[in-house]
């Protein structure tokens, strides 16, 4: 990760230091005022302390849109997308990189966003399922998934589609067997594999630009 050159770069997250601040001098100073005031002040202080020592500035481009954010280093790219940017098309299925539901493109490469901290992507370009279509015009892979019914419940679908697009771009969609191998990181519990493979083959053989 590129180091932030700005002078007000926050110190690394330090739970001990933070608890020390909270519990020692500052709280002692407030100990003589009534309890509700203390708790209100504490809460506010808490946020300020957190803001200055726990969060890290982050610049990202998501689906072509620039974001300047301040995030906790422990926030995953997946949780940032879903909980902070309300881009819920990227799905959480395991949090361990085992199911592929959270697949997004980072600078064009497919990545499990649950296994990746948001702060690792400073300055990078993220594409999620919401950014795949060209306005109202679906991406050929999205069209093919609809046509071949490459899903049932739809929950793994964004990850399957992001992975499928990358699979074709990587040149790993040469045969049915190769597609199955290179799509095996994306689990579909409904078992729509037959139709997903058909959709990918259709796009691949159609020769459209993906």
């Amino acid at each position: 990760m590129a180091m932030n050159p700005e002078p007000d770069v926050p110190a690394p997250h330090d739970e001990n230091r933070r608890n020390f601040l909270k519990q020692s001098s500052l709280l002692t100073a407030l100990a003589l005022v009534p309890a509700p005031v203390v708790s209100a002040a504490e809460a506010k202080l808490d946020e300020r302390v957190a803001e200055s020592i726990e969060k890290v500035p982050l610049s990202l481009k998501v689906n072509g849109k620039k974001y300047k954010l301040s995030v906790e280093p422990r926030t995953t790219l997946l949780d940032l997308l879903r909980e902070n940017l309300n881009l819920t098309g990227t799905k959480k299925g395991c949090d361990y990189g085992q199911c592929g539901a959270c697949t997004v493109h980072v600078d064009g490469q497919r990545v499990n966003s649950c296994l990746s901290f948001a702060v690792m992507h400073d300055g990078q370009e993220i594409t999620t399922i919401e950014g795949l279509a060209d306005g109202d015009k679906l991406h050929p892979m999205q069209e093919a998934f609809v046509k071949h019914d490459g899903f049932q419940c739809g929950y793994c679908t964004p990850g399957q589609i992001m992975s499928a697009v990358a699979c074709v771009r990587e040149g790993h969609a040469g045969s049915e067997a190769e597609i199955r191998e290179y799509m095996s990181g994306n689990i579909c519990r409904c078992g729509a594999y037959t139709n997903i493979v058909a959709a990918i083959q259709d796009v691949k053989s159609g020769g459209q630009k993906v």
Partner: protein
Amino acid sequence: MNAPEKKIGKPMNRVDGRQKVTGAAKYSAEYELPNMAYAVLVGSTIAKGRLTGLDTKAAERAPGVLAVITHLNAPKAPGIKPAGKDPSQPQTVGSALQVLVDDNIRFNDQPIAVVVADTLERARFAARLVQARYAAEKHLTNLEAAKPNAFLPTQAKKNPKSPTADYQRGQVDAYKTGALKLEAEYVIPTEVHHPMELQSITAHWEAPDRLTLYDKTQGTMATRRDFARQWGLPEANVKVIATFVGGAFGNALHSWPHESAAIIAAKVVNRPVKLMLTREQMFTMVGYRPHTWQKIGMSATADGKITAITHESIGQTSTYEEFTESTLGQTKMMYQSPNLTTRYRLAALDIGSPIWMRGPGEATGAFALESAMDEMAHLLNLDPLEFRMRNYTEQDPEKDRPWSSKFLKECYQAGAQRIGWNKRQLKPGALRDGEWLVGYGMGVGTFGAHRGSSKASAQLLPNGTVLLQSAVTDIGPGTGTAMTQIAADTLGLAPEKIRFEWGNSDFAQAPTQGGSAIVNTVGPAVQEACLALKDKLRELAAASNGAFATAKKEDITFTDNHLTLAGNPAARAAYADLVKQAGGTAVTVESKPSGEGQKYSMYSFSVHFAEVRVHELTGEVRVSKLVSCADAGTIVNEKTAGNQMKGGAVGGIGMALMEHAIIDDRFGRYVTKDLADYHVPVHADAPAVEVYFVNQPDPHVNALGTKGIGEIATIGVAPAIANAVFNATGKRVRELPITPDKLV
């Protein structure tokens, strides 16, 4: 004007396809509400005993924490009953286990606290700081050890006609005196549903007495009923929204501890609360297919006629709920056997309750029955397909009445031809392809063609669109699409002009999605609502145009902006005028099953054919070909129905070859905690599945002729694969999954 092309039977694309491929479909943890808080559960680390102390101070002090809720400080919902008071009254669609109400621990990872914070990260961090002390008691999590204490379910004790009661026709255990007999034990391990969407809920108290839940549930009305009862609220004050459900396969048929916990948490912090389980928690608190031991005794004559079957089963349940399923149902009616005995028992373990998992008990039972059929055919030196034909039932031998329809023979023929059954050798181990041993196997499945009662509402909108609403959920089969097709044909309207809305408990009453019953049940309600709407529109139009008063329903024609009559273009009633009339156009109808279920035995049937390759050195099994054939009545949508069959077959591959949730009995805790330990089929594990539908309407289940697909898609797949492995290797594996260690 030409009659519009029929939509039923057509492979129409899904009505919600676009939402699913663009990420626009919102699942239960994806609704953006102001001031959202996040809840994370803390689970017990013992399997049985009592909580003696809880230290929540560190968690409470952690940044961003809004509340740490335990049984010591949780508000008590007025309708909650202590858990386990009467396990014989399982609330299979309710929450049998209430959490945060007392200090009892009934399974490992039972929620003992819920931590609420302003962000997910902070809630997750603080949850780790909660410390608990326990007085542990000796737990029992091993089925083998619990078997000696297996018991008859209370429902069977009370009612000898209960499906779980002992069943008898002819002589008891007559197989023991048969000339040619087989006796074998079969085991399936605990399997976990693991839909890709983690179980999640967003709970929002919109007022102190009004609760809205965005919940992963298969039944919006069942969930509403359950939580209204828990909180002592009128049902109308609770709204459950489940527009998109990211798979369930049965595990959202029940209310679970995390839902209660989220509702309590939202009450305490007075903010909307979102709670999503972890994959690890998906093993421990939202059900599973129970570990089940079975024994089959079978006898036959030398010419291949079954003379007796005894089928016994002991399935796992919890200590606080008697979970039962129809493990022995298929054995009672599938083959002609004059003597038949079944015994169903339960064994209670200190593990959370099971819940029906796709093809539920029938899939478990079919593994034993269909394996035994293959074993007996082998003993007889008969082709297993021929053996099944010799014992085919032309009417239901259990209830002694005709089938409403049965085209299983057609399925046998179609499947055998498609898999290339003629290549199968009677002698195991006779076919090979290089280092791979090749084998063929078959397995049969059946499931009741159930139909319940349901309502549906319909109304005309000013733009000429017909809006239909039902509380039913669509967990993936394509319910919304099928209902749109049914409405299109009934109204004579293009599907684009129909909007079917589902997944909201405020909509017209509909049953929980499950048991392959939704098209059978909601389909007729949609059909009847559309007919009622036509009637209503005719009446409204008649007020200004007499031609409509005497018009026949089938002549009513929808155009772009007005209603007209076939053969009478002068009869016109503008939509804009119709919708303005007093009372509006809305109709709600209720559709109920006819009494024909008493005269006929109604079942869907399937047969699955597998070709497997087993590596002779490593024991690796690859399913190289799978053909699934179904007699499921009318197929409303070939594309979505075919997909459902393929998916069920893939689930069967998991059951046969890999799925196995393992508990370390020393701690009573699962050691399989994620999808790296608990394997489900991935792309590379599944061949392209070929599907064949007989597609003959059933004349008795409903006016559509449907019988249901969801369960028969899985039932019989696992034994088809196990039988193919035997045919390839000569090794009979009677305990699933068939992992390489069992073959080398």
